[in-house]
């Protein structure tokens, strides 16, 4: 259950974070306009926003969003996807992704931009074929940090009242039942999955990193 929530929240963060980061990296105006907002929003802990986001989104779940009211009292995947929780996952994941992407775009070497210009590439072509590929390693780094954050946020969020599923919930519940064996096992699983996430993204990003770091 936690995995599905993270997958949703994280994809949303990546889907929005990467384009926003690309725009902020590429255009000085967009960066000026958005950077204050990002800098203010970034230190706000996602957990701190959980109560607020529950107020805003009520306890709405995906089954309600899609008008599937009748599912409400069933045990169902869609029913467990509280919008508030997805929102704070998005919040936790999106900033490292934005910052990583900006960093990537801005660290494109001037030499490569000039070469692209001389070779007759217009701005859009340069963006697609020079800026994006050369920013990829940093984007992957941002994604890796982002998914780590998401994972931390979801465990904490599931431990708060309002959930009855997920591995964070399991940790709290087993604690209440004094089943410390289950609790410890869950903690180990959490650590293991967290490591799996970042290793997975790392190996995806490896290729682009290798190519860029070897250049002279």
């Amino acid at each position: 259950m936690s995995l599905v929530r993270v997958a949703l929240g994280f994809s949303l963060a990546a889907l929005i974070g990467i384009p926003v980061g690309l725009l902020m990296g590429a255009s000085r105006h967009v960066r000026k306009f958005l950077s204050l907002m990002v800098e203010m929003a970034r230190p706000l802990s996602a957990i701190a926003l959980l109560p607020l986001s529950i107020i805003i989104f009520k306890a709405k779940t995906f089954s309600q969003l899609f008008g599937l009211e009748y599912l409400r009292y069933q045990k169902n995947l869609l029913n467990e996807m509280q919008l508030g929780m997805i929102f704070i996952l998005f919040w936790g994941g999106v900033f490292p992704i934005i910052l990583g992407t900006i960093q990537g775009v801005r660290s494109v070497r001037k030499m490569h931009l000039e070469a692209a210009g001389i070779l007759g590439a217009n701005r859009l072509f340069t963006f697609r074929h020079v800026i994006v590929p050369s920013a990829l390693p940093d984007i992957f780094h941002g994604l890796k940090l982002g998914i780590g954050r998401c994972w931390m946020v979801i465990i904490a969020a599931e431990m708060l009242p309002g959930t009855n599923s997920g591995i964070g919930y399991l940790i709290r519940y087993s604690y209440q039942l004094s089943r410390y064996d289950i609790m410890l096992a869950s903690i180990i699983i959490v650590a293991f999955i967290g490591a799996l996430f970042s290793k997975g993204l790392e190996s995806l990003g490896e290729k682009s990193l290798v190519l860029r770091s070897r250049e002279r």
Partner: protein
Amino acid sequence: MPALKVTSLSKTYRESAGEVHALGPVSFEIEAGEFLCFLGPTGCGKTTLLRAIAGLEKPDTGEVVIQSRPGGGEPVIGYVFQQGALFPWMSIFANLEFPLKAKKIIQDTRRERVESMLDMMGLSSFASSYPHQLSGGMRQRAALARSLVMEPDLLLMDEPFSSLDMRTSQELQDNLRELLKRASTTVIFVTHNIEEAVYLAGKVLVLGHRPGRIVRRETIDLQDPRSRLSDPFTDYLVSLRKTFESLVSE
């Protein structure tokens, strides 16, 4: 009408440490198909001059006029950077394809032109290699190929062989001469290596430094194939060396 006409070009860099008068004013002309070499010590503004011609740098004063194509189209400029500036995330083939793709040339023609260029440069077996897998000489060769595949009217080269060992760089010099015999490309080549200049150029302009200005114009009147050991060759070498020494001791 000359292929390129540069009139009183000058450039001053303003930095926190103060002003650096890097270049000029410099004026010269070059005829179509000519091979012009700028020879000068480090820091004489050679690169600045080349960048200003390519439009990468905005000069403070002066004017650069490049003759348009016979059909009236925009002239195509090729530029070979000192470090090659190949894109490390693309294969050699993709690197050569880049300028053609940018010009929206259809795929079949693209492949044909890239393949024949790779063939001419002896790079065919490296088509799917990445730049970091190649030796320095092969990388510069690929960078040269990437500039030539656009069939430029004017080719600007900024010390392209200076980071290579002597043998490799002489090999590439031979390659370059060979390639240029077939095309009628106008070339401006910048170097601090006197021998390279005498071997390649039809005309050598010596730049003095701070600010860079032309201190000597020399036409290299040697028969092909040029031999680095012939007497006329060494005469040019010694004569230019003297000018060079007087510049450095100034």
